[in-house]
């Protein structure tokens, strides 16, 4: 079976771990538990009649306390760039991370997932910025680890992009 490594990147508390748990175990918890270090999960998926084993690297959110180690992206076929729709700064962080990945690793497939769509009333992100990124060729999906909205679709879209 084809195996693909996917890294989860984004600012802290955007919901990377929650998205993985929703995707792999169909579980969600409202309690925020910060990730220290790296957690690795696996899930087999079928995309366009192809069986793929996804190895999901849930990497801690970079901030002043934990700096990103770019060696974790070695061998990655793609990455999910996660932002929190209720925190504008997390989208700016995602934009910075994408640039950094290009510099450190090169161009690899990615999907921008704007998480917490269940909190759309508190949404801070401007749709104009989303449009601009889409114009630049970014694949952007909205998701909610809480409701499951857009979660499968995000991983499926990335898998398709990785399979080329």
């Amino acid at each position: 079976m084809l195996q693909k490594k996917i890294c989860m990147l984004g600012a802290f508390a955007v919901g990377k771990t929650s998205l993985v748990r929703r995707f792999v175990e169909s579980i969600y918890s409202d309690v925020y538990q910060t990730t220290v270090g790296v957690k690795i999960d696996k899930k087999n998926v079928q995309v366009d009649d192809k069986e793929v084993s996804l190895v999901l690297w849930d990497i801690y959110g970079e901030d002043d306390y934990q700096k990103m180690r770019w060696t974790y992206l070695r061998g990655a076929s793609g990455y999910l760039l996660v932002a929190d729709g209720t925190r504008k700064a997390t989208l700016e962080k995602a934009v910075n991370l994408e640039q950094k990945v290009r510099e450190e690793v090169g161009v690899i497939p990615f999907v921008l997932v704007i998480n917490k769509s269940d909190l759309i009333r508190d949404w801070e992100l401007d749709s104009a910025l989303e449009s601009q990124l889409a114009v630049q060729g970014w694949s952007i999906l909205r998701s909610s680890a809480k409701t499951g909205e857009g979660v499968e679709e995000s991983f499926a879209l990335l898998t398709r992009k990785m399979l080329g």
Partner: protein
Amino acid sequence: MNMDHLLQNFPMEMGFALLEYRSRGDFLPIAELPNWFAELWPDAANGSGPIPLSQQSPFLENFMLEAEDFWNSPGSAACQSETWVEKSISGREIPVQARALFLSGKRILALFSPDSQFREQMKMLQTARNALLDHERLAREIQKKEILLHCIVHDLSQPLSVMHVAMDSLSEESISERSKQYLTLGKHASNQQETMIRQILQTFSDDLRASLDVGTEAGESADLLECARKTMTLLGPTFEAKGVRLAVSATVAPESKWPVAAEQSRLQRIFSNLLENALRYTPAGRRVTIGVEDEGDFLKAYIDDEGPGLPHDLRPEQIFGLFMKGKQSGGKAGLGLYFCRITVERWGGSIGCVTLPEKGSRFWFRLPRATARGGERPSDTRDSSDSATAKRKSAPIRPLRILLADDQEDIRTLTAHQLKRNGHKVVVAKDGAHALRTFHAASFDVALLDQEMPGMTGDEVARAIRKAEQGKKKPIFLVASTGNTTAEDARRLKQAGFDEVLGKPFRLEDLNHILSSAPVAKPVSQLASLPSSPPSASFAELVARVGGDEKLVKRMIHTFLRDTPKRLAGIAAAIRRKNPEGLASLAHALKGSVSIFGAEAARIQAHELQELGRSGELSGAPDVLVRLKEEIAKLQANLRGYANQTPARPKSKRDNRRRPPRNRGKRRR
């Protein structure tokens, strides 16, 4: 137990798994393996052959690349992984760290589970990140709280001011005992409401100050242009996405400094709100321009868009109202521009918008220029204790000449009524600009200025008055009436030039107490005859003005003396009949007439009446007419004298009344 056995078990006892590197990804244990290792990889732990660790753990597979580099380059820097988390078959998460090293020349991989250290690190990070998230949440809440605070202190306090003054006025009327009882009940209830509003205000203001260290502390300043540029950088991609150009006006010198009394993050939010508003209404391919201007004590920023201009059905001040949003391409909640207004006003500035002549609209705000500040202010102007109230009630009332400015008509009318009943002479103004004009047109002991007025705020009027007064021995006594009564507000108002701050809603005894401390320039009885400027130019000057034609001057004087009483009567009638257009027209004509004779004081009063007529606000007109008549009477007296002399020295009013004009006598002969 021999030493070999001890050494064999020592690593396990310490929690280490020591494995010798054999070939790529395969390892052999060189000591007993710890329990956590067996829990994670039981097959590997129980087997006798090499352990394919890279297959067991994707993280180790990745780490091997670094480890092999280390083993292949002896002497290079230590090779150690960060912590990663492996999950056991039972689902338990076990933190692991790896280190590549050499032992007795052998390539060794040491694995360790830093369980307690990991939990400690996680706890610390969890606390730190929770605090950061709380801080972000709190910052968002601040805006909502500020809006609520403003609603409480302004929107709820305003009607309460009217209630207080109305009930005070009523209590001085002759009413039945039963009515007095009802009145007492009403007063009691409104007092209760006032207390509650103050408590809420205090709670919120303390809360705001304590929650985030972003208040407008004395001396705090930010650079207007720098904040604009930072916001432009943040919003640049959004503008690009819509195809709207964003630029600083070419008229702004890039290296110049624009320090204003404001807090930087909130100033940036103001720019952000105004720019987002401009973007909403600007079509693709057009431009949004930011500019700054120097207005002396104030610095002004503006944002010009090339959209459709302001909506026709809204006045500019309504656009900054709470929950006000456009019908098309509107904002989310109608809070953005409202936030801008309340924030700018709390910093002592003002905000507005206009439709530009050619295309689009301009949103602007002005803030006080940041300067060195000094002078501590009282923590609260309020003192509701009984003794204080009694002291206030007993304060003797001295007649004063008072300029009263408030944009709320009912407060203006009732307060003016009460002040007049107490023997003061009162001139009212309906907004800040009106107040400033009135200040320049006459002499006052006291100006009582509402803080939040359209056009010019009370702060701005106070600054303008203090600037105009520079060098004067007896400056006017300035009193701010405001719903914002925190210590910070009082400090800001006093910095603007106010002598006292009167919290709204106010009671008459509070106002009387403050007025009792106002210095009186002259007794009111003498104010009417204060010589502000000469009643007219001299006869010789007038003759010179018309090219030496003395006869022409006399004809002009004759016409003026004949027509002016009719014009004054017409003005009085226009005021009485509430005919603003008629008032403006007649005052304009009279202004022209008195200007011919160089009667500056009369011209100012006529101009004031003309402006009142144009504005439609006639409540202050009777007082201005009184002053105009006084000035006209002085002018008439002079002109009658001129008509009798060639050229004549201006005579006093009394002389002119007693002595019959010579010319008239000659004509009779």
